[in-house]
């Protein structure tokens, strides 16, 4: 379809001063300002902390990171490029090229962690494990099907948002857990940079999905919504088994599942849908939430509990004061 369009029309240069969708520039700016490389994070400060993990904890951590590497590899090489072919505006295509590249940076980062903390033998073993683990392979395959040529562009976006906003989180849980116990804190800093990027990716692709839905007849919208919820169920089943296999030995499975529910709900919100899991099933350990957003207290003036609420001194408010 894309090729046909290119052949038919005159090739057009991208003009960033003529936007069809303001969101493209907003997200482009956000992504480019947030650009980073793993060299920025002093991972070697974690060497001592790594040595204090048990061999089982080390193996789990390496496996979790190879699982994350696989998802980033897919999103870099296949996911984001497939979405580029579906782009409505040239600016959307440019934003997706940034997303594709950052996924390569993320995949690269895990290898930086490995080369800093682990032995080649351990890492090779974990990559072998990632190729043979049925649950990890199943989750990769489920998404790859929707990325295949000829697949429905809006279904691709649904799968992509689930990858960005849901499927990573069985893995992201572990570095947040270590961080909450003051372990591997530099590695956690790096993972937080990845989490921040994935949040923008999930938001943007979800937004484009919503725009795509706007013009559709109700029957087709219903079909896509049904598809989204059934794909989420399918992915959740796989994710649950993957989680049990990884986290049962540490007794963390139930806690990780609550984190999965919480993130599944957020992925659905990115697509403009309502939450699936009830609040009680999506209650995340506060220590993990604090590891996700350190230094940002949860303000709840209403219940009178928690942090001291903010009330500032009056400042003259002018355009210049606010950072545009």
């Amino acid at each position, binding site marked *: 379809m894309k090729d046909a369009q290119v052949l038919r029309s005159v090739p057009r240069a991208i003009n960033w001063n003529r936007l069809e969708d303001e969101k493209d520039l907003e997200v482009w700016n956000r992504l480019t300002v947030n650009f980073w490389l793993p060299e920025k994070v002093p991972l070697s400060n974690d060497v001592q902390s790594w040595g204090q993990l048990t061999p089982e904890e080390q193996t789990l951590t390496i496996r979790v990171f190879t699982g994350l590497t696989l998802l980033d590899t897919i999103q870099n090489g296949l996911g984001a490029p497939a979405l580029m072919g579906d782009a409505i505006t040239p600016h959307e295509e440019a934003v997706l090229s940034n997303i594709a590249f950052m996924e390569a940076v993320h995949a690269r980062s895990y290898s930086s962690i490995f080369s800093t903390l682990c032995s080649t033998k351990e890492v090779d073993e974990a990559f072998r494990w990632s190729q043979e683990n049925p649950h990890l392979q199943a989750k990769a395959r489920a998404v790859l099907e929707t990325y295949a040529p000829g697949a429905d562009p809006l279904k691709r976006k649904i799968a992509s948002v689930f990858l960005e906003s849901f499927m990573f989180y069985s893995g992201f849980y572990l570095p947040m857990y270590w961080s909450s116990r003051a372990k591997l804190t530099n590695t956690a800093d790096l993972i937080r940079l990845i989490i921040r990027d994935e949040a923008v990716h999930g938001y943007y692709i979800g937004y484009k999905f*919503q725009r795509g839905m706007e013009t559709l007849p109700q029957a087709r919208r219903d079909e896509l919504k049904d598809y989204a919820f059934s794909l989420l169920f399918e992915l959740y089943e796989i994710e649950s088994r993957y989680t049990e296999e990884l986290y049962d030995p540490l007794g963390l499975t139930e806690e990780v599942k609550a984190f999965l529910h919480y993130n599944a709900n957020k992925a659905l919100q990115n697509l403009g849908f309502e*939450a699936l899991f009830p609040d009680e099933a999506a209650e995340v350990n506060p220590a993990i939430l604090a590891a996700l957003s*350190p230094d*940002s207290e949860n*303000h709840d003036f209403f219940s009178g509990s928690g942090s001291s609420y903010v009330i*500032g001194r009056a400042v003259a408010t002018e355009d210049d004061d*606010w950072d545009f």
Partner: protein
Amino acid sequence: MPGLVYFSSASGNTARFIARSGLKATRLPISPKDPLPDLPRDYVLICPTYADGLGRGAVPKQVIRFLNVPAHREHLRGVIATGNRNFGETYALSGRIIAEKCAVPLLYSFELAGTDRDIARVRDGLAAFWGTQCLTA
């Protein structure tokens, strides 16, 4: 009559929160060309956060323009911020900035379109908040 004013960009999370809550609220226009709707006299503002990694650009431009008018600021009684915890330290940052600039309390913060629990907290919280405000007025 105290009220609620909110901003929601084209991605619509805050608008979905308002729709689900059943609360009566006034939406600030996305395009600067659109006229401002009639405002409630005293109000609480619900504002999303769009910060970059350094916290810049947290408050949407449309909200900045709105609050730059002294008459609008004068009736602002409190702020509720939204965001995403995945943005780390800048989660719901817009609320902290507005609270400080305008010397009003940051009442609450929630993620994306909010949970059912967030809706209940905001509904009950606002009712109680306006109660105390009337008593002290």
